[in-house]
């Protein structure tokens, strides 16, 4: 077993015990990147090996002298390329930020650094987190380590693939409509979107501000709970950051779901859902029932309205959030132009890819004079209804169980031609963002093509511990599959 096969917490323990040095861990990660990057393209930017080694030595000293005692100290991590990292370029996988080096580091990443994390690179993503396949990146597509002919999902596809391929021990992603949970599902890893406001958004380059949330992507539920405990904080620099009393997420790793009420939305299990995915979800329900949970089906309602409401809200916010990329302060500026407005238009038209432009156009339209009420306010009212539907559900259930995505990972090149079809792939994840809820995707089984199927657990706001409990118990009962891909025969 190679060092990159360990979970982040296992590796952290070995480092702490002196069985593995931080340098060895660093070299293992860099070796994996050297060996696999050409094939999977998980990263936009990989740190120089020498710099990573120097950092590793520095961390080792702090671990040895007792300054760093946390479970993630010295463990190699990758960060999605929409989180600012001081001195390391941050591109959002866009041409428009090709050479952008932030002057500061995102709060969530700072929290990792404080815990002694070894940051080895910035992962590929759909441009500005807009997409479900990591094919809209300006820096090439990322491929699914389970089968390189398939997409890793998106938008945090680089992070998911890097974890799955063992090109890092764990990663940070961001989730606006499913961008952590869906690629986690496609890549056979665990990905968690916390309650809105739990992890600071300061330094996360905004896509849909009211929906964006940073979360962990890792090999198992224990890692996820541990990482979330590390990155979650109340940040006075983020007005929407929530002050919580219960950051001890690992305390929910109990393998005990006795009496837990679990609801499966009938509306998640019908038309459009792949039969094998459905079976995997029902199998997971059965495992939990065997462990003492009470599982029943119920009608969540409004499921089909989440996607249209989401695209109005997210596109509107994006059209405004992305206005700052104009060739004046940072990033790309077009070569030749005549006057200010021509400079703006050429810079943005050359700097943004088609999916980003599509959403900016839509967002600008739905906010424009005469349409605001019909589209934007309508979407916000729909969001309120969706939130009410979840409130009703959580009055009855501790956890909602369902698929993370309707299918396993599609083939490369299949999705982008029909945007609405691609958007429909987010049907089980998007409403969670609209309602601000926590959700986690855990690998359930493999389909007949050998691709992973993700099981999603959704909790009420601030009830991360419920879904961690359910996900952990399920993980403990799951049939053994070697979820770790590193060192496997080439597929």
């Amino acid at each position: 077993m190679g060092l990159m096969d360990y979970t982040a917490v296992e590796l952290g323990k070995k480092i702490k015990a002196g069985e593995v040095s931080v340098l060895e861990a660093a070299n293992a990660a860099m070796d994996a990147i050297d060996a696999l990057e050409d094939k999977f393209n998980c990263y936009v930017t990989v740190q120089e090996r020498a710099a990573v080694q120097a950092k590793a030595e520095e961390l080792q000293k702090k671990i040895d002298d007792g300054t760093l005692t946390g479970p993630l100290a010295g463990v190699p991590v990758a960060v999605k390329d929409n989180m600012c990292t001081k001195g390391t370029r941050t591109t959002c996988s866009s041409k428009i930020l090709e050479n952008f080096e932030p002057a500061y580091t995102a709060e969530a990443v700072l929290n990792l650094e404080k815990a002694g994390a070894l940051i080895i690179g910035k992962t590929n993503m759909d441009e500005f987190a807009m997409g479900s396949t990591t094919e809209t990146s300006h820096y090439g597509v990322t491929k699914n380590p389970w089968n390189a002919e398939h997409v890793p999902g998106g938008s945090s596809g680089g992070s998911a693939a890097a974890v799955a391929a063992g090109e890092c021990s764990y990663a940070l992603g961001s989730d606006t409509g499913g961008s952590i949970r869906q690629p986690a599902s496609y890549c056979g890893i665990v990905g968690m979107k916390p309650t809105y406001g739990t992890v600071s958004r300061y330094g996360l380059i905004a896509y849909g501000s009211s929906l964006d949330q940073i979360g962990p992507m890792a090999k198992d539920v224990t890692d996820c709970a541990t990482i979330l405990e590390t990155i979650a904080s109340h940040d006075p620099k983020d007005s929407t950051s929530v002050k919580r009393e219960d950051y001890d997420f690992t305390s929910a790793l109990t393998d005990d779901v006795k009496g837990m009420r679990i609801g499966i939305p009938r509306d998640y299990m019908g038309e459009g859902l792949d039969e094998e995915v459905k079976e995997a979800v029902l199998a997971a329900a059965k495992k939990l029932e065997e462990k003492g949970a009470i599982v029943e089906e119920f009608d969540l309602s409004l499921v089909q309205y989440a996607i249209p409401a989401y695209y109005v809200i997210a596109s509107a916010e994006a059209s405004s959030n992305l206005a700052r990329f104009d060739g004046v302060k940072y990033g790309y500026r077009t070569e030749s132009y005549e006057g200010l407005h021509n400079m703006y238009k050429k810079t943005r038209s050359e700097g943004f890819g088609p999916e980003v432009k599509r959403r900016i156009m839509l967002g600008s339209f739905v906010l424009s004079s005469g349409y605001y009420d019909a589209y934007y306010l309508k979407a916000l009212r729909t969001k309120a209804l969706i939130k009410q539907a979840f409130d009703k559900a959580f009055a009855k259930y501790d956890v909602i169980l369902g698929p993370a995505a309707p299918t396993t990972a599609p083939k490369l090149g299949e999705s982008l031609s029909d945007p609405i079809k691609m958007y429909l792939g987010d049907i089980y994840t998007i409403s969670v963002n609209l309602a601000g809820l926590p959700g986690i995707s855990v690998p359930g089984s493999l389909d007949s093509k050998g691709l992973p199927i993700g099981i999603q657990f959704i909790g009420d706001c601030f009830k991360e511990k419920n879904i961690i409990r359910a996900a952990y118990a399920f993980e403990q009962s799951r049939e053994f599959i070697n979820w770790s891909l590193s060192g496997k025969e080439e597929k």
Partner: protein
Amino acid sequence: MSKQYETVIGLEVHVELATRTKIFCGCSTAFGGAPNTHTCPVCTGMPGSLPVLNKQVVEYAAAVGLATNCTITQYCKFDRKNYFYPDNPQNYQISQLYLPICRNGHVEIDVDGRKKNVRIHEIHMEEDAGKLVHDPSTGNSLVDFNRSGVPLIEIVSEPDMRSAEEVIAYLEKLRMIIQYLGASDCKLQEGSMRADVNLSVREVGAEEFGTRTEMKNLNSFSAIARAIEGEMERQIDLIEDGKKVVQETRRWDDDKEYSYPMRSKEDAQDYRYFPEPDLTPIVISDEWLDEIRSRQPEFRDEKQARYKEQFGLPEYDINIITEDKTLTDLFESCIELGAAAKEVSNWIMGDIMRLLKEKEMEASDIHFSPANLVKMIQMIESGAINRKVAKKVFEAIFDEDVDPEVYVEENGLKTVNDEGALRKVIEEIVANNPKSVEDYKAGKKKAMGFFVGQTMRAMKGKADPAMVNQILKEMLD
């Protein structure tokens, strides 16, 4: 002009609040400074940065609202106003559209004794933009974000004004209220108070408003008055020629005394407002509002009544002293230090007003310490200096805030009240002017003035006038 026209004017007044820091970040609001030295990721629109609201901005805005009889919106929010311009780093401005902090207020103005209410539609909070400077050597523009994010309130009036005089009276009233609150220094020249004029014309008696234009770039009261005249004439000319007034934003060129359209097709005025997702709503509880209300200062009307009651000053004096917060503060400080009200008032009405005018200064530019004025007044009262000398001493206080005792000592201005010395000088003058002595004795009392004048000249103004009079009378009678 065959028809009679009426001008209808509404104002959008921007006031920079006197906070120490910007509205959404901890950068200083200090005026000046080299370009971009008061900036951070937030006020330069760096990717990933987020705004956090300065509490003082809410308190100032609510205080101005209370002082202008507004209803305070106890649940209010910020919205984004989207438009591209290089002085606007995010290409949206955080402002308020749907739930502004204050609504439905009014202030009373007084033009030539006619009192009138100007209604305030709303007051909202927003962030200021950066500064653009033309670079003549390249033809480009340079962007400085030092002012980006400085807190503003925008006070939007109803179209209740009908003349430049009413507009000026309204602006002066607002300025006074806001200065009294300490919420801003309201200097038009430095841009801490700015007015955009919405103007339309209609035939006298018409019910409907005409099409209005908005004029920007007005940085003095006189420019505002000229712009109103100029725009009114332009619109009337258009109507008389059978043309239409176009609703648009125009830039006033004060040199050419004409306004020009400001925007092109590329500046579609479609701001796509939506609730700012990065900021939470503001809830102003009754308790908080009471707290803000309890901190409101004594305003001009209240002060005027009190000055009359407490000091018995003439209305004319009271009007001038309370017209400006600096003068009021000066007056009250001097009273507190023990000076007599009328005496202080006389100095304000006389020498201070004269010097301000001569030196083309605003009252807010006064920088001397009230203690020095009071000390000087006490020196007059004790006879240490006479009034004539005091005028000279005061100029030095006004200019350089000198300590009057030190100044009088250093410049040898102390009144001479050595009776023996004076008597000697006077004896000599009387002896040298027998003709005037005769005149005096013949009943020409004017001759007395001549002797006093001669004495003062000989004493270089420093003689104690009472003593001079007394000695002269003794000798001549």
